[in-house]
């Protein structure tokens, strides 16, 4: 299938499947992550389609109410913890970070493999939890107390699975930060580093400094269920709001674990297809770090209607508005980079432009949520569901797809079919908006999230939304068909099909085991096009 000295042909002390699942090569580990993540993504999509199908008509359609609770919980747990948090960093980051900084591997290759094994074990534990004990958890992915302590479903095991995933994520962050500090090519100063590694660096710090709090929160939840310590139980002197505090101290920064790498991807793709240097390199670097930092200050905006003190609501609301500044800087810089460029609208850029559009909608509706008064109206409604799908799916997942197309030739040494990729894009974009935009209206009108049933006046929009889910699924199908079949039957790719200027394009496609024939030397800033 692939010839030459690519890492696919590398001699290893193991043979067959073992040469993959015991490999310490960052490229193989990246592909292991991608395979596992997209398998789970597929399951998550199926569950999402089932949710939409159930909601096509009021009352019972295809499943019972308890089954519905389990389905939306598992959809959330899979999409958040198994797909989008490991997402771009563990999959593409693993493959590309050493290539982009001109290193042979990450700083701790064996630790990297161990992270993958933690990921797989966590996923396995979650899957086991679905079919054992009291059945799949039905708490929603947030595991809020007191229900998560009282429910008879298999929350303890599922939470332990997520705990293992947390360890995996932390170790990946540790590895990447150390890699970036120690293994940059000679001549690559901090401000000559491409923006995707910069985004991974900021993400790495969030993974390091936030994920332990999640680990603790989940441990506490397990202890509550097993030993009954009572920290979240008012009858014993505890405070259920503390769970929400601890949970969101992690889970809000986690939102930036999801989006920062996506922003890094966009900053890589735009200069290549605009044939022009990125506008405001330093400001994009700065805004990545600023987003990572400000992410710690705003968790309370998930709790405006939960009974926090009024003072803290005002403080958190105010701080939340600050996030809009660095995000805005990035959006303006990307648009300015396109301005005056000689734009080549290839599929990676098409997906990227969709990212900018959808993420802007997601971001701006975020301001509606962060204002205290409007938050009371939309909290816990479909408006929130629409908002975070616009940022997470419209944002991160679209950037992920853009990145998959952009680096596909580098990873597999093959080209995908451009026309088919653009067709898939059309279905994805149209389906996405048909699916999620009606949810903004539904939420504004008062449709609560996670409800099994609804009033007749919501029927039309629910039907439109369900139809959107089918269009979106068609788009996903076409995209994956195109990519997967191109691995086997695509045309051979050149080492630099898009004319990129970062280091990964200076080696062959796919790269050799040691990434570069000669250790690269960097002499100037990234993104200099002639």
């Amino acid at each position, binding site marked *: 299938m692939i010839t030459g000295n690519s890492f696919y042909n*590398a*001699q*290893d002390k193991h043979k067959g499947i073992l040469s993959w699942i015991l490999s310490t090569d960052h490229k193989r580990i990246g592909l292991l992550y991608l395979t596992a993540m997209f398998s789970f993504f597929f399951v998550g999509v199926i569950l999402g389609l089932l949710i939409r199908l159930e909601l096509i008509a009021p009352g019972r359609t295809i499943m019972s109410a308890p089954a519905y609770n389990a389905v939306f919980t598992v959809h959330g747990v899979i999409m958040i913890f198994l797909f989008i948090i490991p997402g771009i960093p563990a999959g593409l980051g693993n493959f590309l970070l050493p290539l982009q900084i001109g290193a*042979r*591997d990450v*700083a*701790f290759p064996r*630790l990297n493999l161990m992270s993958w094994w933690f990921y797989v074990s966590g996923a396995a534990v979650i899957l086991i939890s679905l079919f054992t004990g009291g059945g799949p958890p039905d708490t929603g992915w947030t595991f809020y107390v007191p229900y998560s302590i009282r429910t008879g479903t298999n929350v303890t095991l599922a939470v332990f699975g997520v705990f293992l995933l947390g360890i995996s994520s*932390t170790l990946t962050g*540790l*590895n990447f*930060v*150390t890699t970036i*500090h*120690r*293994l940059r090519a000679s001549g690559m100063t901090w401000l000559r580093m491409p923006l995707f590694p910069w985004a991974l660096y900021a993400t790495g710090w969030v993974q*390091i*400094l*936030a*994920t*332990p*709090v999640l*680990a*603790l*929160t989940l441990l*506490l939840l397990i*202890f509550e269920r097993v*030993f*009954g*310590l*009572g*920290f979240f139980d008012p009858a*014993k*002197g*505890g*405070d259920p709001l*503390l769970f929400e*505090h*601890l949970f969101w*101290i992690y889970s809000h920064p986690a939102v930036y674990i999801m989006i920062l790498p996506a922003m890094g991807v966009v900053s890589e793709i735009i200069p290549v297809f605009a044939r022009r240097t990125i506008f405001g390199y330093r400001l994009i670097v700065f805004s990545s770090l600023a987003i990572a930092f400000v992410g710690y200050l705003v968790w309370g905006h998930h709790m405006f209607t939960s009974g926090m003190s009024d003072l803290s609501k005002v403080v958190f609301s105010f701080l939340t508005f600050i996030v809009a500044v660095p995000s805005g800087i990035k959006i303006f810089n990307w648009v300015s980079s396109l301005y005056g460029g000689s734009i080549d609208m290839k599929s990676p850029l098409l997906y990227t432009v969709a990212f900018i559009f959808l993420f802007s909608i997601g971001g701006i509706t975020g301001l509606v949520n962060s204002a205290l008064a409007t938050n009371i109206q939309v909290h816990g409604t479909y408006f929130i569901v629409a908002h975070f799908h616009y940022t997470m799916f419209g944002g991160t997942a679209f950037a992920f797809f853009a990145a998959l197309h952009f680096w596909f030739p580098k990873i597999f040494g093959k080209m995908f079919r451009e026309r088919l990729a653009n067709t898939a894009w059309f279905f994805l974009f149209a389906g996405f908006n048909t699916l999620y935009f009606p949810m903004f209206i539904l939420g504004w009108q008062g449709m609560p999230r996670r409800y099994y049933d609804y009033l007749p006046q919501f029927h039309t929009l629910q039907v439109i939304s369900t139809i959107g889910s089918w269009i979106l699924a068609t788009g996903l199908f076409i995209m994956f068909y195109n990519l997967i079949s191109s691995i086997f039957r695509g045309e051979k790719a050149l080492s630099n099909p898009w004319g990129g200027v970062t280091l990964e394009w200076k080696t062959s496609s796919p790269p050799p*085991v*040691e990434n570069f024939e000669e250790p690269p030397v960097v002499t100037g800033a990234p993104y200099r096009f002639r």
Partner: protein
Amino acid sequence: MSNMSITEHRPDYEGSRLGMWIFLFTEMLLFAGLFLLYSVFRTRYSPEFHTSSVELSRTAGTVNTIILLTSSLTMALSISVIKSGRRGMSLLFQSLTVSLGILFLVNKYFEWGAKLWHGIYPNSPELLQRGKGKTMFYGLYYLMTGLHGLHVLAGVILLTIMFIMTVNNRINREQYVRLENSGLYWHLVDVVWVYLFPVFYLIN
């Protein structure tokens, strides 16, 4: 060919130490979450925390503090002497560190045992009828000293492995970064105890 280049990978001691430090940061955040919980309940149940603290053995706490501080000293000395190649000395200091760690755990075992004997453990009827403040205090006491104790146990195991590696000459005056990193971990466990001691044993 690939095998040759793998052996070419030079060990990066500074990178390895940086990785260890970052790991310690994650440990700090883990305990920070617990201290957050502690400070919340201490604010809420200030008087009860005081009366509960008096029930703990101040002597046992002080002795354990001295034990851990001394073990940190022997740990640091064991690294200091291995740099100048005095392997026997280093082994002596390493075994002292491990022994002190075990002594700490034994002390802890008797301390916990005495409390359990009186029927004070999480969710016990005896504890619940003593009121909300005490329930929270002892919940935190068991959780925080328990998690810290697990870290001490992990450290003891880690240092035992280091001891064996030193015996086998895999840790020597040239290559001691593993011992150094284990030392960093051990010192951090000490730092955590430095905070745990006053917040549980010394509330006045």
